[in-house]
């Protein structure tokens, strides 16, 4: 039974208790009134007796006094009948005291009859002796009725007292017990719940089940609502923490991107400006030399200007490639690596012409590779051209070797050389933009390896390098699922 029902029961019981108490008080008061009426009945009968006594002593008949006395006597049984309600009647019938009503009715009847005698005597239809006789008979009846009336009234009142008071006591007792029981169960279930909720977190593995078993009714509803609310709040907190983390990491990566961009802008503008300002000065010299007639020096410088412009062009092309590397293209196709190598060799003719390096390439693929050809062409060309550029003049048979193959779910490109190697302290900077480590042999933009890295990142791959004075190996690993 839930708490509100229990409380409702207490209210009903209390109401019953109060109404029964009030009812008994009224009934007892009614009993007192009946006694009072009987006392008045006796009093007026006594008055009438005194008047009759006077007549018997031959005193003149005071007919008005007698009539008013009888009317007064008649009044009590009428009031008595009026007082008895159906419930009283039922009770009286139950305890066999309903003769009270009969007594009253008879009393009224006798009073009515006596009043008739008074009228007959007034009219002279009745003799003085007969009238006196009638009065005496009536007096006897009145007295007898008063006597008879007392017993059933006392019986009725005592019955009411004997039944209702124990009933009130029983109900009160039950009420007290029930209220204490109820307060005990309510406070104990609250205490249990508090205990359960304040138990150590590691012991509440089955808190949900425990709550389900140990609580009921409104408390259960309260716990369920509270739990839902806390769950929602926690979810909100978790969400906001997650959101904050996302913002933080995004801010950090934005900051990094911003720093990279600033660095890039600085280096790019520097590397763009350098050949430009060089060419500008040289052009000025060319003009002066031509004026002075030194055409030899002029043409030499014109050639340098041409070379500067070529360098500038390479740089601009590389910057554009780097910018493109970040953007995906729909241009995916199965790559013919054999053709890719042939094309690349053609492009690197200038580098291979006077180069003592041997270039060996192997292709060993069990599945067709589908991707953007341009990315792979740039990756392979940059790695191979670096190997060719930085060969070691002190080694007998310099070589660059490129292996393209796959193993199960992974695609590999390795480029190995026995060149001069990358100094240990610069290894961390290999993939940075605008880095060149070999001053004498540097010809490129310094963007090649950064471009390689960008392509590999785009393809979800990884690039690692091993380098010593014996040579350098770059190893590229790309998951095949990106390439099918």
């Amino acid at each position, binding site marked *: 039974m839930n708490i509100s029902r229990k409380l409702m029961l207490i209210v009903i019981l209390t109401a019953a208790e109060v109404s029964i108490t009030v009812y008994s008080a009224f009934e007892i008061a009614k009993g007192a009134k009946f006694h009072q009426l009987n006392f008045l009945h006796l009093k007026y009968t006594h008055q009438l007796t005194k008047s009759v006594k006077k007549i018997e002593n031959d005193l003149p008949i005071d007919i008005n006094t007698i009539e008013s006395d009888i009317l007064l006597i008649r009044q009590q049984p009428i009031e008595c009948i009026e007082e008895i309600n159906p419930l009283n009647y039922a009770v009286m019938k139950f305890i066999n005291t309903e003769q009270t009503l009969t007594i009253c009715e008879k009393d009224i009847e006798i009073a009515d009859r006596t009043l008739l005698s008074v009228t007959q005597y007034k009219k002279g239809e009745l003799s003085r002796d007969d009238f006196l006789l009638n009065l005496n008979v009536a007096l006897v009846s009145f007295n007898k009725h008063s006597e008879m009336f007392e017993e059933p009234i006392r019986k009725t009142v005592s019955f009411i007292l004997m039944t209702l008071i124990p009933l009130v006591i029983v109900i009160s007792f039950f009420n007290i017990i029930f209220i204490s029981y109820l307060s005990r169960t309510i406070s104990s279930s609250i205490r249990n719940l508090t205990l359960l909720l304040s138990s150590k977190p590691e012991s509440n593995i089955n808190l949900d089940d425990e709550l389900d078993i140990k609580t009921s009714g409104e408390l259960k509803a309260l716990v369920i609502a509270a739990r839902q609310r806390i769950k929602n709040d926690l979810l909100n907190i978790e969400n906001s923490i997650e959101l904050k983390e996302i913002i933080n990491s995004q801010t950090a990566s934005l900051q990094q991107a911003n720093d990279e961009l600033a660095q890039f802008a600085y280096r790019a503008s520097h590397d763009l*400006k*350098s050949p430009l*300002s060089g060419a500008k*000065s040289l052009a000025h010299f060319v003009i002066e030399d031509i004026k002075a007639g030194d055409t030899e020096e002029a043409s030499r410088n014109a050639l340098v200007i041409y070379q500067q412009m070529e360098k500038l062009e390479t740089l601009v092309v590389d910057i554009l490639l780097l910018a493109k590397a970040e953007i995906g293209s729909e241009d995916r196709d199965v790559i013919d690596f054999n053709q890719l190598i042939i094309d690349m060799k053609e492009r690197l003719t200038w580098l291979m012409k006077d180069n003592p390096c041997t270039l060996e390439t192997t292709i060993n693929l069990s599945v067709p590779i589908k991707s953007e050809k341009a990315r792979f062409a740039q990756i392979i060309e940059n790695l191979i051209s670096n190997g060719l550029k930085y060969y070691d003049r002190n080694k007998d048979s310099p070589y660059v070797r490129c292996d393209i193959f796959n193993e199960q779910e992974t695609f590999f490109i390795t480029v190995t050389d026995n060149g001069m190697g990358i100094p240990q302290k610069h290894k961390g900077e290999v993939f940075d933009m605008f880095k*060149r480590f070999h*001053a004498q042999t540097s010809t490129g933009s310094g963007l090649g390896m950064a471009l390689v890295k960008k392509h590999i990142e785009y393809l979800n791959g990884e690039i690692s390098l091993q380098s010593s004075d014996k040579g350098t190996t770059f190893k590229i690993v790309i998951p095949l699922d990106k390439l099918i």
Partner: protein
Amino acid sequence: MTKIKPPILIVDDNEVDRYILKRLIKEAKLELTIYEKKDGQEALEFLENYESNRIKYPDGFPPILIFLDINMPKVNGIQFLEEFSKLRKMIEISSCVVMMFSSSEREEEKKIIMSHDFVKGYLVKGSFQAAELKEKVMAVIGQHLDKYS
């Protein structure tokens, strides 16, 4: 008596820039002995071999002025200045001063560079002509030129 040409050192990885500077020096009619190094490391080695270079170039070592680029491989201009300031305390090159020769005009770099008291000027590549160069060089090493002549 043959006139002794004061020695200077150009440290720059870019051959074109070195040529331009040499050509401007020539146009300015500054009679100088010019040494060239391709990066900070080569320049430091050149200065560190003080004794042997003094014997090798009896009238032309150490240089009295260094034109120094900033963006160079191995040891860049800023790193060179650090090492050079240590070197000045050890060997007799305290009369040697530095003039920056770079296309970079980065303020934060400039601040670090100019904090060395032996850095006497900052030339931005491509922004000056022979006359201007002469003026600047004379302001810095004029007294040496007098001494040498």
